């Protein structure tokens, strides 16, 4: 188990998480100076809008990675949630039903992932990969390859409108993030997640039901992905079978940049969300600097390896 779990939040901020927050601030200042448009109200609002769905996925992904796992099925869950959002009449009165169906899908997928990993001891990579493929096939069959229908206005508002420049979707992300942080850093459940992630054998020896923790964590991740799928469908407005494509890898990249160790047991929700913000800021800055869009991918690749190498050296 990592010592980070038993530090006070202040100590954690000063010791464990500082580099990513510092890096985020430096990145914002440098980008703001180099391209003043970066810090314009419109651009900031736009970036925060894009941060929300990624951040919500990252929250769930962080739980899984803290346990030493990985969730490759999140993008598929997002697309399935988005398809569900347009499978009704497109009117606001269907929103409760959409939310219910979406959350149910999230819980089911999370249970499938969690049971495979905990009870059948399938590696998380494979379990979530296989579930992703199955889910994709079922979605294609349901939509016959081409989803149609409209996203209800209420979801459109959630995904794309702001309150004096502050996107509603970001508020939702912050609320979910705060809840997750309390659960992880303040509740017994969180302690157990760190314990199991830091050393499953030891955790079992002290009497923790590791299977239950594992299943719960995969359910959290899938539910977060389902919520993010609704937010993203509200942002883009139109739905295809691949809403959220790339989010499985981007959410892992963000968490790793934010100091969450793939080996488990180390990292914080705040750090992971800061990692997501770094990723969004870099994507945005690349375009503002007039670099070709391909540079986004190249820089992302370099940054994740550099960040991981940085954390390896530190520990």
């Amino acid at each position: 188990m990592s010592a980070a779990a038993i530090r006070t939040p202040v100590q954690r901020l000063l010791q464990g998480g500082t580099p990513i927050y510092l890096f985020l601030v430096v990145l914002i200042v440098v980008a703001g100076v180099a391209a003043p448009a970066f810090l314009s109200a419109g651009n900031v609002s736009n970036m925060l809008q894009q941060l929300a769905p990624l951040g919500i996925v990252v929250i769930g992904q962080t739980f899984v990675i803290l346990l030493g796992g990985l969730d490759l099925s999140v993008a598929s869950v997002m697309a399935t949630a988005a398809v569900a959002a347009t499978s009704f009449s497109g009117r606001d009165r269907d929103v409760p039903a959409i939310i219910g169906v979406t959350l149910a899908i999230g819980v089911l997928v999370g249970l499938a992932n969690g049971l495979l990993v905990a009870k059948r001891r399938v590696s998380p990579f494979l379990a979530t990969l296989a579930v992703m493929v199955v889910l994709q096939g079922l979605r294609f069959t349901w939509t016959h390859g081409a989803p149609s229908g409209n996203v209800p206005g209420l979801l459109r508002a959630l995904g794309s409108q702001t309150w004096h420049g502050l996107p509603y979707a970001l508020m939702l992300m912050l609320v979910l993030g705060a809840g997750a942080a309390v659960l992880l850093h303040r509740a017994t459940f969180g302690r157990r997640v760190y314990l199991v992630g830091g050393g499953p054998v030891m955790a079992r020896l002290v009497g923790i039901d590791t299977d239950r923790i594992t299943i719960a964590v995969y359910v959290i991740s899938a539910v977060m992905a389902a919520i993010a799928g609704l937010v993203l469908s509200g942002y883009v407005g139109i739905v295809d079978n691949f809403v959220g494509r790339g989010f499985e890898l981007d959410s892992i990249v963000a968490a790793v940049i934010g100091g969450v160790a793939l080996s488990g047991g180390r990292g914080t929700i705040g750090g992971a969300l800061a990692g997501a913000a770094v990723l969004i800021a870099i994507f945005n800055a690349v375009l503002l600097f007039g670099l070709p869009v391909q540079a986004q991918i190249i820089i992302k690749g370099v940054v994740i390896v550099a960040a991981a190498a940085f954390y390896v050296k530190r520990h």
Partner: protein
Amino acid sequence: MTTGRLPTGLIAVTSLLLLLLALGAALSHSFIQPGNLLNVLEQATDLAIVGLGQTVVVLTGGIDLSVGSLISLLAVLTSGLIDSDASMVLPVVAGVIVLGALLGAINGLTVVWLRVHPLIVTLGSGAVLQGITLLYAKGPVGGVPDGFDFLAYGRVLGLPVAGVAVLLVFVIAALLLRLTPFGRYVYAVGDDPVAASLMGLPRRRVLVVAYAVSGACSALAAIYLVARFGSGQPYTGANYTLASITPVVVGGTVLAGGRGGVMGTLLGAYLVAVLNNLLNFLDVSSQMQLVVQGLIIILAVSVVIDKRRVVA
């Protein structure tokens, strides 16, 4: 390490394959015809070759998530540089294979030097390679001279050249892994890296070579795909990153490293090809084929509980 007794993974994939063939024979008369089975042999080529390199990396305890982007890059380079000029075929093909091995070796060196998890290293290098690919080509690029498709569709004495070549390559790879010291080191490093280092095995060199082999295999797959489709595209390889894992694990190689082998991967690739072929015969939509494929992965990896895996 598995010597002596037949490993359970190999038994599982063989039975599953035989079961599918029997099912196919029972359901459709034309399925079991030699002509169709030779087609299946041919159709397994790309997955088998990428899976071969992936197997060697997984045996060392690593994973190579850059194969998809690498295939895309090498495919656009192959057709882009040959550009329908017959005299360019040999130098470009040789150059692409060398480049594939070199880029793979860079993956291995990064894993060794930075001590970063291979998943992160190859995810990162995969992103960089995809970016470079898109800078070079935004759509299909160049072309190949007539006759290049022999590599994909050629038949000698009625036998598919690509399918037979794959079979030979796998037999050679299996022998190398079993009989040479280097092959044993691959298993030892994957089984217990610390013990391997303590015994003085060249752990770093083994890792670099393993990733180089994977890179070279991606190059072969890229050349095969260009031969099949006539030109390379910037997303030619995109699906192979995750798809290449399927034959490896279905064939009984354990993601944790140290256990499994290439023959299982070959059977795993045949299994996927037979499955897709059979589902086509049964008129199952390509969407439901995905579902079945996912279920097969789940079945293959969850039937036998890996007792050495400790939770999560």
